[in-house]
């Protein structure tokens, strides 16, 4: 477990956040710009000295102001990846990577040099200077450098925000591999819903310096009472497994509790986990199953909650399909015409699915 509690006041801004997140997987700190998520991350790193703070990583106490405990940043076993890559301009890539590695006692090293170099594919860059690298390459080096410093906790402050969409696509697979292959917990700050739904296992929502809600990503995104549901791109994330292939139509059948869907995808191994994202705008509801529709994926579900969307024309509905939750955004007019209420049995028609991993 990672337990943190920080109180910090600037002129016009107050951070008062307490969080408790699992010490495995990726925890996303998510919220609009200026909500204090980066400040919270800096507090965890010890770069920002809060008026009153408490931080425990696994069993180690890094900060407890009631007991005058404050471990300075350089003695905390953490890695920090900043928004801009921040490589040391006077050192080549190899010596950038060595900077933290050489300062870590051999007994504490968790990942070998070769493995980190391989994992982030920086082997061919070792003798280049930072200003000769592309933005994506620099960020990969920065991530490798952080990982080589044997962190017990990896902090990432919008590591993809400074990159264009192309470079972002280039880096994301590396972040996923990192998460799959290393058991380092990650605190990941972002205001991009797509990054969060792709990478995170756990979600902490921040607003105005305070934690609004915290919990497993799939549960959090399925809630209608949180700011995430008001987002234009609101939607759920579903963990599924590859259950079969349809060779004839080049489709893959993905199973999850309560149903299955088909997606068009290259053949993947049966049983492999696949993360799906289904946006509320891509889900419509019908009172009966429409066999005369082009929509391939239809799942029987029950309405469990109705709420107003941010746009006054629309309503958000939460659907329960045998253990899996879906969100749908439809018009109030449709709600009235179909006489939808909580408990209504409907067919959820899924027009589009994003395969995230």
């Amino acid at each position, binding site marked *: 477990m990672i337990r943190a509690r920080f109180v910090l006041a600037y002129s016009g801004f107050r951070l008062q956040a307490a969080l408790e997140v699992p010490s495995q997987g990726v925890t996303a700190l998510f919220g609009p710009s200026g909500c204090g998520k980066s400040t919270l991350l800096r507090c965890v*790193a*010890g*770069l920002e000295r809060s008026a009153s703070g408490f931080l425990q990583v696994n069993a180690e106490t890094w900060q407890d102001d009631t007991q005058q405990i404050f471990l*300075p*940043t*350089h*003695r905390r076993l*953490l*890695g*920090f990846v*900043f928004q*801009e890559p*921040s490589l*040391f*301009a*006077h050192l080549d890539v190899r010596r950038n990577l060595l*900077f*933290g590695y050489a*300062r*870590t006692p051999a007994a504490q090293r968790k990942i070998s040099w070769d493995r980190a170099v391989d994992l982030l594919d920086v082997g061919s860059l070792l003798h280049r200077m930072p*200003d000769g690298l592309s933005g994506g390459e620099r960020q990969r080096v920065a991530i490798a*450098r*952080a990982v080589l*410093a044997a962190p017990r906790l990896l*902090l990432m402050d919008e590591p993809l925000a400074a990159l264009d969409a192309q470079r972002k696509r280039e880096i994301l697979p590396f972040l996923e591999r990192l998460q799959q292959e290393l058991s380092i917990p990650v605190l990941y700050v972002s205001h991009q819903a797509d990054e969060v739904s792709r990478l995170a296992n756990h979600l902490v929502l921040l607003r105005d310096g305070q934690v609004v809600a915290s919990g497993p990503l799939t549960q959090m995104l399925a809630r209608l009472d949180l700011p995430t549901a008001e987002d234009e791109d609101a939607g759920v994330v579903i963990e599924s497994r590859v259950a079969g292939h349809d060779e004839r139509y080049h489709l893959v059948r993905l199973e999850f509790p309560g149903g299955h869907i088909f997606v068009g995808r290259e053949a993947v191994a049966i049983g492999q986990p696949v993360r799906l994202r289904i946006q509320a705008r891509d889900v419509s509801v019908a009172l009966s199953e429409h066999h005369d529709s082009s929509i391939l994926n239809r799942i029987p579900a029950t309405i469990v909650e109705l709420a107003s969307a941010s746009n006054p024309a629309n309503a958000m509905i939460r659907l329960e399909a045998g253990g899996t939750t879906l969100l749908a955004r439809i018009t109030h007019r449709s709600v009235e015409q179909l006489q939808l209420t909580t408990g209504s049995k409907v067919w959820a028609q899924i027009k589009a699915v994003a395969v995230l991993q």
Partner: protein
Amino acid sequence: MAPAPNWLAPQQYRVEPPPNRSFADHAGPTKITISAQMRNRTVRFLRIIECEGVGMLGPRSQYGVRGRLGCHAPEPITTSRRVPKMVISPDDWSAVRLTLALAGVVTASLLLLATPIAWWLAHSSSRWRGPISALVTLPLVLPPTVLGFYLLVAMGSNGPIGRLTQALGLGLLPFHFSGLVVASVLYSMPFVVQPIRNAFEASGKRPLEVAACLHASPLDAFFRVALPLARPGLLIGAILGFAHTLGEFGVVLMIGGNIPGETRVLSMQIYNHVEALEYSQAHWLAGALMAISFLVLMAIYLYDPKRRMF
């Protein structure tokens, strides 16, 4: 038809003195070879020398400076237009050596002193930052004589620094090489602090934060990250400090006087030559100083950190 004159070819011109004056004691017009474009400018320049430059030396001799320097009143102008030849005396060499030693010691001391000051100014949020900044920059705008005067008083036998140095058994600093070093360090301080401070400010706090997150202690981060990143600033600070000390005059005059081998630096020696109307020697020293200063400054402007010329 007569051919058009070739204005670009070197030609001989006769430069006549202004109608109501003569060229010092030089009888007859001077023959000089110059390119055509320079003709008018050269004529004007020679007139200025005649009317203002050389003529000015006479009246100035009545000021007290000359007495203080221990020079004698000049003989009538007789040597001013002699063609310069190699006439550097052992005294001149001694002044050159002394100047280089002074500039070297001052530059080294300044790098040691100015770096922490620049660091503090770049990173502190203390309310003393403004006043200290102003204090460090003061020599930039103050006449060197003012600084020299206060230092002379402070380092004199009744001044606070003078009492301290006497109590420590160091004697009095004025009119000694060590006094020159102290004064020059203070006088050249802004030229060294400013570029280093700019370099620290330009790289900002981020590299230090990154270093801390990679387990580098603050001191480790300073030497391994902040200083190497500030290298261009340190280099420029060192060059400016060195060059500025080479050309220093006013402070030396006030604090060091004109003691051969001890405080008679290059600028002082040039002054002595000019006072004694030994223009050729003055030419050699002044020209060398100008050339060195020019080369040093040009080196700064050609310096490109990305090309790693240094």
